[in-house]
């Protein structure tokens, strides 16, 4: 079998692409509403980005420049694997630079750099239904969305406050889109939620296993659910990135030894590298420089 010669550009056949494209257009027209689509079996496992991959494959063209990140990093194995997949089946140009990319497929993060109008952000979504953990039945949650009945979600968040003194949801924090649909932003840390609001870039969400596509058009209100006495707030970090010195970015904790030594570095690897190329130095690199002198 001359395997790859048999596959269409970007793997999917044209009929499948049309089906996904129609779903994307409806998703854009109804911001935050989950459009059911006939998700295909992909050559990677369900739960590993099949929804994102199908959305990317349906929009991708020969002039696009693709960036793939997982946990904010371009070099995590699943990001590497998905990027390699598109290089193979679409021969598409790839980049790790956020600013150079026209399509960014992501799992769990939104890049730190502000996205522009010429960019599309494609999210990989495991459980698209924000109400799923409150009500496991699709027939019920569909009804709740239809009636705009979101009381259950507020009850859940309020129970958090009663028990923990604060909202204890730290990622996949529910948002309301364009004043109508409550939407799951995918398991991004809530730190990233404000970036979704009034973004210049189109945001598309693909859930392969759950067979749903949804969208946030550019310049659309995306509001994190909260209460007057407990307003939404994002995580803050006490120290800047140890490598590039960036503040107000999302940091990964890296355990350095078995004696409690740890450092915090940018989760967005491209952002961190770009800053270091520009000569920014964090604590860890400054120390090394001193040591070398």
């Amino acid at each position, binding site marked *: 079998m001359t395997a790859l010669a048999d596959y*269409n550009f970007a793997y999917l056949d044209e009929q499948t692409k049309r089906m996904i494209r129609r*779903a994307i257009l409806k998703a854009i027209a109804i911001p935050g509403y989950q*459009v059911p689509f006939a998700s295909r079996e992909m050559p990677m496992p369900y739960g590993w980005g099949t929804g994102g991959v199908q959305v990317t494959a349906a929009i991708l063209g020969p002039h696009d420049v693709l960036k793939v990140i997982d946990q904010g990093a371009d070099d995590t194995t699943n990001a590497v694997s998905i990027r390699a997949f598109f290089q193979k089946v679409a021969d598409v140009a790839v980049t790790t630079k956020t600013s150079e990319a026209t399509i960014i497929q992501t799992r769990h993060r939104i890049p730190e750099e502000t996205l522009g*109008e010429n960019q599309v952000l494609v999210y990989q979504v495991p459980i698209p239904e924000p109400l799923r953990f409150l009500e496991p039945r699709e027939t019920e949650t569909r009804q709740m969305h239809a009636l705009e009945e979101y009381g259950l979600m507020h009850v859940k968040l309020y129970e958090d406050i009663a028990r923990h003194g604060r909202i204890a949801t730290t990622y996949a924090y529910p948002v309301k889109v*364009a004043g*109508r649909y409550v939407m799951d932003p995918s398991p991004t840390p809530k730190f990233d939620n404000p970036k979704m609001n009034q973004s210049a870039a189109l945001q598309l969400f693909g859930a392969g296993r759950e067979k749903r596509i949804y969208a946030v058009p*550019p310049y659309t209100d995306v509001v994190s659910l909260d209460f007057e006495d407990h307003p939404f707030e994002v995580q803050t970090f006490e120290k800047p990135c140890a490598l590039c010195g960036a503040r107000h970015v999302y940091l990964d904790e890296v355990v350095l030894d078995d004696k409690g030594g740890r450092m915090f570095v940018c989760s967005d690897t491209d952002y961190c590298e770009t800053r270091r190329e520009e000569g920014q130095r964090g604590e860890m690199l400054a120390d090394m420089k001193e040591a070398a002198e």
Partner: protein
Amino acid sequence: MVATATLIPGFADPVFDAQSSFRAAMDALSRPGTIQQIGCPLTPPKGLSAASAALMLTLCDYDTPVYLSAALAQGAVPGWLGFHAGAKVTSDKSNSAFAFFDKSSPLPAFSQFSQGTQDYPDRSTTIVLEVASLEGGARLSLSGPGIKGANEISPVGLPATFLDQWRANRALFPRGIDLILTCGNRLIGLPRTVNIKALEV
């Protein structure tokens, strides 16, 4: 009729032409009011704008019942659409996934098309309407998702009742039709979310 229709070619490159046309449609609907362009050359069958024809080939197939305006239904379009896209023409507006109108046929009330349901608002008709021009007419102000602040369009050839109809359509949200205006190889997207107001001249 079928024989002549099949002589009119479709996309020169079905894969890449459909991709670039889709991106034009995606940009049009996600940025309402911006004028997008179909990038590939396409000779449409008589009565159809190049942009409408490109959207047909890009989005319609066996799974999408297509409604055609009376003028389009009588010409070369049904055969061309069947041959290149495998799509079936329906006379039932309320069951159509797409509806195409040439610039001279009257546009029926939006309420005659599928509006989707409250459970499945995505199951509504997308109407593709060819107009005399996308610019130079009465100025309309647009706002809503996809638009930073406000935006303006000035198409020529919209029906007189358009603004009232659109307001009614907008009020149905999340149900409602989505509209794409075409002229030549250019298009404007008006998803159901957009607010349209007439601007004082």
